[in-house]
């Protein structure tokens, strides 16, 4: 098993849970350690309960894991909720002045900090947080220097006095722990690597910048708003026009307008906003104007649970906009993939002049992951497709010759942008002929309609060839095959490792491209499997139903979770064992962490 270490920090919103989290994340990544962070929170600005999990280790950490090694409850509520999670070898650092501990499990250690003796709490309201960070680092065997560096950076804008006050408090916590608490049995290692730590939202925004996006617009909606924030903050440096729009209907149409004028254009939202964008996607398809729309799924329906994760929008995306039209839909597999997928989907959308949809979710959008900076490639392949932005030098164009919707074998018609002399045409949401003249009203014509439908739909064949089929990872002849899509990649991967370690060999089929699905390739993989289970974060098995509708494939079982929280590896491991024992075909693991 991989060596990892997990810190859980719990408290009320506004109590400063994020700051110690950020400090730990910086220290770990600068130490050359990988990390994965997930914050379980609520739609409340002050109060409520949030629980941040940071898991670190020398190898890639793909999910939040099953175990908390160090618990830092910032209030009594957090102590009450989470002390029971701790098992043998774990520790809990807490403010002994204000928090009464419960009885920990055997082998779990309580580490009370006499906060008012160590710091002047009348001056510094978050002193307990800083003391706990210092104490925690001492127990992990990390030198104080790294914390001093991060605190200095963090507070340097506020002046030397604030820096030295905070460093002093942290030092007091560090020294107190060194003197009074037992260190963890293995110190956190150090490597020569350096990692960037980013959320899926930042990754998708940066992926957009790398792809050459010049127009981004949005209406704020959790959990997609982080994309807007990064875009807005970096717009001027990156040369991107970023607008906040009155509603998501305006968003998608504004994005289509910019795309039609010839720039790469992107927007992001969540399920509710996506519902408003639906008609616009049809416009993008009909006018053959490529646009990329990101849906960061949250638990629905309706306003649902705005701060909780789900994979519940698949059928909305599949059914978005009326009529048949070509499009491409991708689900990023992890936070690094959130970056890579954007240039890839833009190339396909541009080549085939159709909408591209990225189906992300809160787990990736707001989770944080360490990435090797080399994997954040700001010079990816950019293929704008058959785009005309200047008059033809051969002089072959000109009025009366250019047909915007020319019928071609590939279904792709060269796209001229407004401003180019000799190519004036009308792009229409009504059905039209090759010239762009409407054939929906006065000139209704079944033959032309059929020809235009077939022209557009021929692009599907090209899209299928441009998108790779999924591949099976792990041994071919495994006892069990776990099938997932998008963000569950990491947790399924770890579940497979645990199962294999326990004598049940497991492999994984993770779907990244939802449309086109490559059903034949999937069937070809699945025909050699022994026992298949589809794992997904929704109630009805949306992917299982989709796979069945496309391929008639029915798996042996299902593991589903729809409580708002992501899977933990043991949820999947236990469900697999339950199903192999023949007890059930459908497992719905309970989430033990009370958030």
């Amino acid at each position, binding site marked *: 098993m991989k060596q990892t270490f997990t810190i859980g920090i719990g408290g009320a919103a506004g109590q400063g849970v994020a700051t110690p989290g950020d400090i730990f994340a910086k220290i770990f990544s*600068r130490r050359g350690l990988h990390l994965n962070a997930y914050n379980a929170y609520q739609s409340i600005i002050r109060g409520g309960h949030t629980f941040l999990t940071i898991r670190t280790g020398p190898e890639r950490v793909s999910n939040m894991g099953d175990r908390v090694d160090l618990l830092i409850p910032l209030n009594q509520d957090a102590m009450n909720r989470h002390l029971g999670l701790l098992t043998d070898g774990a520790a809990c650092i807490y403010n002994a002045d204000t928090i009464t501990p419960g009885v920990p499990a055997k082998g779990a250690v309580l580490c009370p900090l006499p906060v008012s003796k160590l710091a002047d709490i009348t001056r510094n309201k978050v002193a307990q947080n800083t003391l706990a960070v210092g104490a925690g680092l001492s127990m992990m065997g990390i030198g104080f220097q790294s914390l001093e560096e991060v605190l200095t950076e963090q507070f340097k804008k506020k002046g030397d006095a604030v820096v030295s006050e905070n460093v002093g408090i942290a030092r007091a916590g560090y020294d107190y722990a060194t003197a009074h608490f037992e260190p963890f049995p293995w110190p956190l290692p150090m490597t020569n690597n*350096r990692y*960037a*730590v*980013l959320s899926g939202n930042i990754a998708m925004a*940066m992926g957009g*910048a*790398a792809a*050459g996006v*010049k*127009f981004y617009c949005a209406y704020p909606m959790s959990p997609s708003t982080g994309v807007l924030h990064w875009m807005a903050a*970096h717009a*001027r*440096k*990156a*040369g991107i*026009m970023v*607008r906040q*729009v*009155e*509603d998501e*209907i*305006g968003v998608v*149409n*504004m994005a*289509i*307008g*910019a*795309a*039609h*004028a*010839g*720039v*790469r*254009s992107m927007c992001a939202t969540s399920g509710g906003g996506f519902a408003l964008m639906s008609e*616009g996607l049809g*416009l993008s398809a009909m*006018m053959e104007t490529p646009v990329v729309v990101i849906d960061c799924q949250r638990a629905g329906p309706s306003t649902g649970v705005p701060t909780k994760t789900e994979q519940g929008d698949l059928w909305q995306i599949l059914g978005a906009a009326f009529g048949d039209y070509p499009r491409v839909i991708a689900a990023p597999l992890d936070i690094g993939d959130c970056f890579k997928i954007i240039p890839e989907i833009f190339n396909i959308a541009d080549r085939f002049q159709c909408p591209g949809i990225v189906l992300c979710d809160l787990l990736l959008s707001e989770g944080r992951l360490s990435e090797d*900076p080399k994997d954040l490639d*700001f*010079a990816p392949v950019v293929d704008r497709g058959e785009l005309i*932005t200047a008059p033809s030098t051969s002089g072959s164009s000109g*009025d009366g010759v250019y047909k915007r919707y020319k019928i071609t074998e590939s279904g792709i018609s060269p796209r001229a*942008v*407004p*401003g*180019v*002399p*000799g190519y*004036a*045409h*009308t792009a*229409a*949401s*009504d059905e039209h002929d090759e010239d*762009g*003249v*409407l054939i929906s*009203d*006065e000139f209704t014509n079944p033959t032309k309609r059929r020809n235009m439908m077939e022209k557009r739909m021929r692009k599907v064949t090209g899209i299928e060839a441009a998108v790779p089929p999924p591949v099976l990872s792990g041994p071919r002849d495994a006892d069990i095959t776990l099938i997932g899509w998008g963000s569950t990649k990491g947790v399924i991967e770890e579940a497979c490792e645990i199962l294999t370690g326990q004598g049940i060999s497991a492999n994984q089929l993770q779907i990244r491209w939802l449309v086109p699905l490559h059903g034949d390739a999937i069937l070809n993989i699945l025909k050699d499997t022994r026992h298949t289970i589809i794992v997904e974060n929704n109630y009805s098995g949306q992917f299982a139903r989709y796979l069945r509708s496309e391929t008639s494939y029915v798996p042996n079982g299902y593991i589903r979770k729809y409580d708002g929280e992501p899977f933990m590896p043991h949820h999947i491991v236990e469900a697999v064992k339950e199903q192999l024992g023949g007890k059930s075909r459908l497992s719905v693991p309970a989430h033990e962490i009370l958030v």
Partner: protein
Amino acid sequence: MATVLADTKHVAMADLKGKVDPDWCPGCGDFGVLAAVQKALVDLQIPNHNVVTISGIGCSSNFPGYINTYGMHTLHGRALAIATGVKLANHELTILVTGGDGDGFGIGGNHFVHSMRRNVDLLYIVMDNQIYGLTTGQTSPTSRMGMKTKSMPFGNIEAPVNPISLALAAGATFIARGFSGEQKQLTDLIKQGIQHKGFSFLDVFSPCVTYNHDNTYQWFRPRLKKLEDDPAHDPTDWMAAMRKSLLWGDEIPIGKFFERTDVPPLHGAEPVLNAGPLLHADTRIPPDVAHSFVEELM
């Protein structure tokens, strides 16, 4: 609206003729609007490839198909949102948005208000016939109270929207009203609207001869009074414009209600566009900038 440098080629009426003839009913007010737009573009000598005519859905929204410029015939109510995107991606283009009262003030009402406060540099011409025509005669947001239609057979019980007052309140920087039966004034207002650098709103009475038997040419003619004939009218006075906008009944003003030139258009307020249209911008992020983006995360 900014005027694009004219190409050397002379722009003639024939150059602006669309691929097909309008399918509007004989006598429709929209013919007059189309002619006035074409005349204005000839007068201003703006080459057709630098003009994008963008519409939503409805009788009048078929407009882009009948004029030889770049055109977009989009979704019901969404033309202004799309036009904003086009303008921001290539602000050298002249943008005309055309549509009807249902498209603009009903389903598109949200975009109408916000496009005005943003001062997007375009000319928005609403062919206002106070009825839904293409859906065969239902009450529109500008239908008068009491008007009987297929959707309100016992008479409209809802007050109509006042587009001029709304535009004034929302912050449009050029606001005018025309009549499709007054070609000369209409052409002049269109030219002024195109040349104005900011959001130009032109509400045009464009009678529906098939479904609206209340607001006919004959009904309008005796009531319309040109603002330019009133020596006391000062189009820079917002309060006076608001008072004029409330006139309705025996006297209905047409002409330029209001114009202010001290507000930068949206594209002029964002430094990202200082280097020129985004369409021509380098798509690659410079390596040092990309490096700084990653460094922030370390």
